[in-house]
């Protein structure tokens, strides 16, 4: 035990307490009468008992005075007496052998604990407890009860809930009634002849009307005109069905894919009253065409007809959807107020943000969505506001949608092989001119994690595998110091034509990209630049392997025909001159983070000294490692695997930026 530590203190207190308890018990037996000092004594009558984890819990009634002084007939439970929950330690309970209806005297020091949300106080540290026997019936009772075994119910507490040591504010903000952008009751009584159009060409402009008139006569033909604010993909949850598309498909031939569709094209639309709805359209096999849909459809008017209502969701249940809706609130042009004719004033100020949203979906076999691609962009459309990364990192707020345009420097995929490729977490390390051109304060590179893997289309991934690219991150989620790409985020290779730059300096990156140097603030899952001196080498990690000079494949095989040659499966050809790659784990002393041991797996830009060393280590003869110690290494670009404090070590792996 630590000298002066809490454990030692408790040991001492515990020993003292134990001695006091046994002394006290001896005294009780010796005196054979109730000690006269009544101050601080709790007198309780046990009503019910059960056991929890060896502690006996007794539901008791607190008595004013000892019933020994009353006759048994007088000791009636009066309703007004306060209740207590008394806990007895296993040893005390065994000593007391109490039963319901027993009266117990609890002598100080005992402790009272008041629980939140509970009326009954809890009494603990009840070591100094003594059962009081009502003199008249004591003997008979002892005899009868001594023979029958008492079964005490055992309560097994649940392990499901962890304790919360902070005082959580239990008041959740609950809206008593949903705020509605459109005030509902009046809408139905609207005598406007447009409400239920007879002719197909009549178009409504209220989503709420369409939803609420579902099933009414002429509802099928009713069309609602809305503005497409956003186009994105969502994972397909149900099984796919084929749909007849109301719009011209993007490609000339019908899409016949052998891959099962796993994403669904969705629109976030807004009507003239400012109300939003998410419309789920056809299934796509992958998210690749999303860029074109965005370019052609966002901001345009669209007519919806005969939609099926999937659900009405609220803010509390669809945080992702509402964070996107919030980014589009308030509307940029005045919206209509229901119940008034079109010419009267329209409101845009002081409108509360929407608290509910209908999710609509297509019914198969019918024309539902007609996007007017030729028309101009609606005034109601709010293009994504683009900010520089530096500005975003300094913003307050939690779970807000932010759009930015950044250079992707490095892509890291989670390497766990048990997880299918399309569900692995991907991390993109990005930067822009606002981060690169500023000294200190903000990091030079930001990690963006992609949790919804389909958001990263194969098009973008392939483009990134060739070279570093500028990628437009539309509606990424910013909060808690992190940027994440979730559902409804869209990654595009081209900056959309319409986006408000919000005054950010989004100039191209001039000059080579710089990474932050490894220092005491570096955390795991980041990239940094490292320089230092070699102070040690992990000889067992020295490894070299041949790679194909055409495709870089590191898993070459021996040629079946001629075992002296190497064969590349990917190129399906013999590798005449393989490129030798080497790997070694070295320990560095880095002046920028001198307190840590820095361990780097180097493999690419191997300095000559290390190259020689690796060769030495791989050869059967043994050489001195000393010849490499002291060599300077750097500036290496590395990915930080782990940062531990006990031992103080940073694990890195050399990487190549895109």
């Amino acid at each position: 035990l630590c000298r002066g530590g809490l454990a030692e203190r408790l040991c001492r207190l515990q020993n003292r307490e134990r001695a006091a308890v046994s002394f006290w018990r001896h005294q009780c037996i010796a005196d054979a009468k109730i000690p006269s000092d009544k101050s601080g004594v709790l007198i309780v009558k046990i009503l019910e008992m059960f056991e929890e984890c060896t502690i006996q819990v007794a539901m008791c009634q607190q008595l004013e005075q000892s019933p020994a002084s009353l006759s048994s007939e007088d000791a009636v439970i009066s309703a007004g007496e306060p209740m207590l929950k008394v806990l007895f330690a296993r040893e005390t309970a065994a000593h007391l052998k109490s039963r319901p209806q027993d009266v117990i005297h609890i002598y100080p020091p005992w402790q009272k604990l008041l629980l939140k949300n509970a009326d009954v106080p809890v009494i603990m540290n009840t070591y100094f407890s003594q059962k009081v026997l009502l003199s008249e019936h004591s003997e008979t009772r002892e005899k009868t009860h001594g023979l029958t075994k008492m079964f005490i119910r055992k309560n097994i507490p649940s392990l499901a809930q962890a304790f919360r040591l902070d005082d959580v504010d239990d008041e959740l903000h609950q809206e008593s009634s949903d705020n509605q952008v459109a005030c509902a009751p009046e809408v139905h009584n609207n005598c406007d002849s447009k409400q239920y159009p007879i002719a197909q060409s009549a178009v409504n402009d209220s989503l709420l009307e369409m939803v609420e008139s579902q099933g009414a006569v002429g509802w099928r033909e009713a069309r609602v005109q809305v503005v497409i604010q956003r186009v994105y993909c969502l994972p397909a949850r149900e099984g796919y069905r084929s749909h007849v598309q109301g719009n011209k498909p993007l490609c000339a031939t019908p899409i016949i894919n052998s891959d099962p569709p796993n994403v669904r094209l969705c629109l976030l639309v807004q009507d003239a009253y400012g109300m939003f709805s998410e419309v789920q359209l056809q299934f796509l096999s992958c998210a690749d065409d999303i860029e074109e849909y965005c370019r052609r459809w966002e901001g345009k008017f669209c007519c919806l007809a005969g939609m099926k209502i999937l659900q009405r969701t609220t803010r509390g249940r669809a945080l992702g959807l509402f964070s996107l809706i919030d980014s589009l609130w308030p509307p940029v042009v005045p919206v209509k107020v229901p119940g008034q004719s079109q010419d009267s004033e329209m409101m845009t100020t002081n409108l509360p943000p929407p608290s509910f949203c209908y999710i609509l979906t297509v019914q198969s076999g019918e024309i539902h969505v007609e996007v007017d691609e030729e028309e101009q962009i609606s005034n109601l459309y709010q293009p994504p506001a683009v900010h520089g990364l530096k500005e975003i990192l300094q913003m307050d707020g939690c779970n807000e949608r932010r759009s930015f345009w950044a250079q992707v420097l490095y892509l890291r995929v989670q390497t766990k092989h048990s997880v299918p490729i399309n569900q692995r977490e991907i991390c993109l390390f990005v930067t822009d001119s606002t981060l690169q051109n500023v000294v200190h304060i903000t990091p030079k590179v930001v990690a963006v994690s992609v949790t919804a893997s389909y958001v990263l289309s194969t098009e973008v991934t392939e483009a990134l595998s060739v070279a570093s690219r500028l990628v437009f991150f539309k509606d990424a989620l910013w909060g808690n110091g992190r940027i994440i790409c979730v559902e409804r985020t869209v990654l595009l290779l081209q900056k959309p034509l319409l986006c408000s730059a919000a005054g950010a300096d989004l100039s191209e990156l001039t000059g080579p990209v710089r990474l932050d140097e490894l220092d005491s603030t570096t955390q795991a899952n980041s990239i940094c630049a490292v320089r230092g001196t070699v102070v040690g080498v992990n000889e067992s990690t020295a490894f070299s392997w041949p790679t194909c000079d055409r495709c870089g494949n590191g898993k070459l095989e021996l040629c079946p025909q001629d075992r002296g040659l190497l064969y590349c499966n990917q190129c399906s050809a013999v590798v005449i001159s393989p490129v030798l790659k080497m790997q070694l784990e070295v320990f560095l002393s880095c002046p920028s983070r001198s307190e840590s041991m820095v361990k780097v797996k180097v493999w690419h830009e191997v300095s000559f000294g290390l190259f020689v060393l690796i060769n030495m280590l791989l050869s059967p003869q043994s050489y001195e490692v000393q010849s490499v110690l002291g060599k300077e290494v750097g500036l290496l670009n590395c990915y930080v695997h782990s940062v531990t404090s006990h031992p103080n070590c940073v694990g890195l792996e050399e990487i190549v930026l895109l």
Partner: protein
Amino acid sequence: MDSTLPAVAEELLKEIKKAFQETSHIPDDLLLGLKFIFGPSAVSALDLVDHRSVTQVMSPSGRTAYQVLGSSGKLYTCYSSCHFCTCPAFGFAVLQKSESLLCKHILAVYLSQAMGACQKLSVSEEQLTSILLAEEEDEG
């Protein structure tokens, strides 16, 4: 009747946290309260806290777990959202026999939280996953 002990234990730990925040000291009666509720685990847990054996492991997504360096030198993992520990005493005394509410490692986690004595460690998502899945780790 619903169980009582968890609420009592939680309140006691909250009082310890409050007392520590206000006075940087834990009064004797709260220590004895720990002993009363948790039995012999109390001293062992406090010993672990004295030795700063509890590490809070966090990943970029915000997931956490706790690792406690036991007296035998073994590292046990405790979950943050429910009561679970990989030590044998937990499996026996808590799960099987329901004799204890917590094992000394979980109690040490709470006490370290209350006193701000947790070591902190950031790891990548992969590493946290492997900790939670109790896989063998390649690197130390």
